[in-house]
């Protein structure tokens, strides 16, 4: 009993610290990759090739003045960034990040908790993120924030549908909602081979879900200053950032778990395989971000409702037919 408690606490601490560190260093990675794609060098001053830049940014944001706008709803204004961060960090609880290891005669699964409805848990938590954005936009008492919040809400809700439907094919093939089971089902073949369309839909829809370019209408710099976080400063602003980047790590981890075989892979230790795969999916997200321009709002809605949703439905139907034909 005591052993499991300690093991769980250690796992939670590792995941928590890892996620926060990854979120911090993703900002540097993003800036470096953006720089290289635009033929620049990115941050070079703080530390060797800017390696200490996230720490410098963190210290700067920590000591900045905390400005709360005059007409803002103070409680909701402070609550909103927290609502963004917590679901992003909690989602990782059900993701298996390595093969079970044997410690002192016990088999410890490298997963904080194996919920048997793992996918539903993830979907429920990721959709909570929209509340943080909407509350922050509304509580700021600023037209830019409000417009950004409204846009983001509409966008996230419409892309959520395609996101969920793109996973249904995976659930049908795996026959289980638990993520540990889904990973072990992929020991012979990654699900991306069976579900390439589902993978692409999930990639696009999750980009929209995270409010990243090309779907960053909620914070469109050109029109809305900074969208829902226009009025935020100091650590609250940093919380939005941590939330965004943690969400990116989590989404990449979900993609790896569902489509790319989770922690499975030859030769190298399983945790390393997981990290490598997550890193590559993150690189894909960054690559997409610095390639495409932002969509117009009607184009965004068209893409979500007229393209991704029918495609996801067709994907489910085709998957079902093939499974019946193969008698599985």
């Amino acid at each position, binding site marked *: 009993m005591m052993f499991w408690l300690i093991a769980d606490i250690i796992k939670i601490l590792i995941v928590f610290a890892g996620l926060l560190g990854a979120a911090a260093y993703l900002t540097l990675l993003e800036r470096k990759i953006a720089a*290289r*794609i635009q*033929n*620049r*060098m990115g941050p070079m001053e703080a530390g060797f090739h800017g390696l200490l830049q996230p720490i410098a940014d963190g210290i700067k944001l920590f000591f900045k003045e905390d400005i709360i706008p005059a007409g803002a709803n103070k409680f909701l204004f402070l609550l909103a960034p927290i609502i963004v961060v917590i679901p992003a960090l909690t989602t990782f609880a059900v993701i298996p990040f390595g093969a079970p290891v044997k410690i002192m005669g016990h088999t410890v699964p490298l997963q904080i908790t194996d919920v048997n409805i793992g996918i539903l848990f993830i979907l429920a938590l990721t959709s909570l993120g929209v509340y943080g954005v909407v509350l922050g936009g509304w509580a700021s008492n600023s037209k830019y924030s409000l417009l950004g919040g409204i846009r983001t809400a509409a966008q996230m809700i419409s892309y959520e549908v395609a996101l969920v439907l793109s996973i249904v094919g995976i659930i049908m093939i795996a026959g289980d909602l638990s993520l540990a089971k889904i990973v072990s089902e992929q020991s012979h073949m990654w699900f991306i081979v069976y579900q390439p369309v589902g993978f692409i839909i999930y990639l696009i829809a999750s980009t929209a879900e995270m409010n990243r370019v090309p779907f960053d209408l909620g914070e469109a710099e050109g029109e809305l200053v900074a969208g829902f976080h226009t009025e935020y400063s100091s650590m609250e602003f940093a919380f939005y950032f941590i939330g965004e980047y943690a969400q990116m790590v989590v989404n990449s981890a979900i993609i790896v778990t569902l489509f790319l075989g989770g922690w499975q892979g030859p030769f190298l230790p399983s945790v390393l395989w997981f990290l490598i795969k997550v890193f590559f999916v993150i690189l894909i997200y960054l690559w*997409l971000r610095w*390639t495409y321009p932002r969509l117009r709002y009607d184009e965004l809605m068209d893409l979500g409702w007229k393209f991704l949703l029918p495609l996801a439905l067709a994907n489910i139907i085709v998957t079902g037919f093939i499974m019946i034909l193969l008698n599985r």
Partner: protein
Amino acid sequence: MNTEKQENSIIEISKNFLVGLKTTIKTFFRKPVTFQYPKERLTIAERFRAFPHLNVNGDGSLRCVACFLCQTVCPSEAIKIKSGYVDYGFEHELTERQKHNRSLDKLKAGTFNDGRRHPSSFEIDLLRCICCGYCEEICPEEAISMGSDYEVAFYTRDEGIYGIEKLIKSR
């Protein structure tokens, strides 16, 4: 002009998406063009024209003979010269008229005496200067030439007016 909306098939659109991705990944592996400016500097071309500076002889005396050609040719009126003493040299036999020229009296004792006229002040307003190089071209004595120092900054406008000493020192 064809204003009709282009018909885009899904294949065409996806092809364009991939072209974009290809372009960015190609740039990603190219060497950055950035120069870390204060640490690294671009090598300046030999013909580079920055602000003008004054040349001196080997012994440190000014080559300028205050002929006013540069002041005349300067299109932005950046150069202001005041003609100073006329120096006739030790061996020159002074005419009656030259004997009455008292301009040499102001000169400090021991000043170099080369038998030429010299400017008493020579000012270039670097804020007016357009670095066109006309002054260098027209100068008969090669006394003024374009330097390579482009990093010039001032706190006030008056600091932008360079006198003889500063013009000699600047590169």
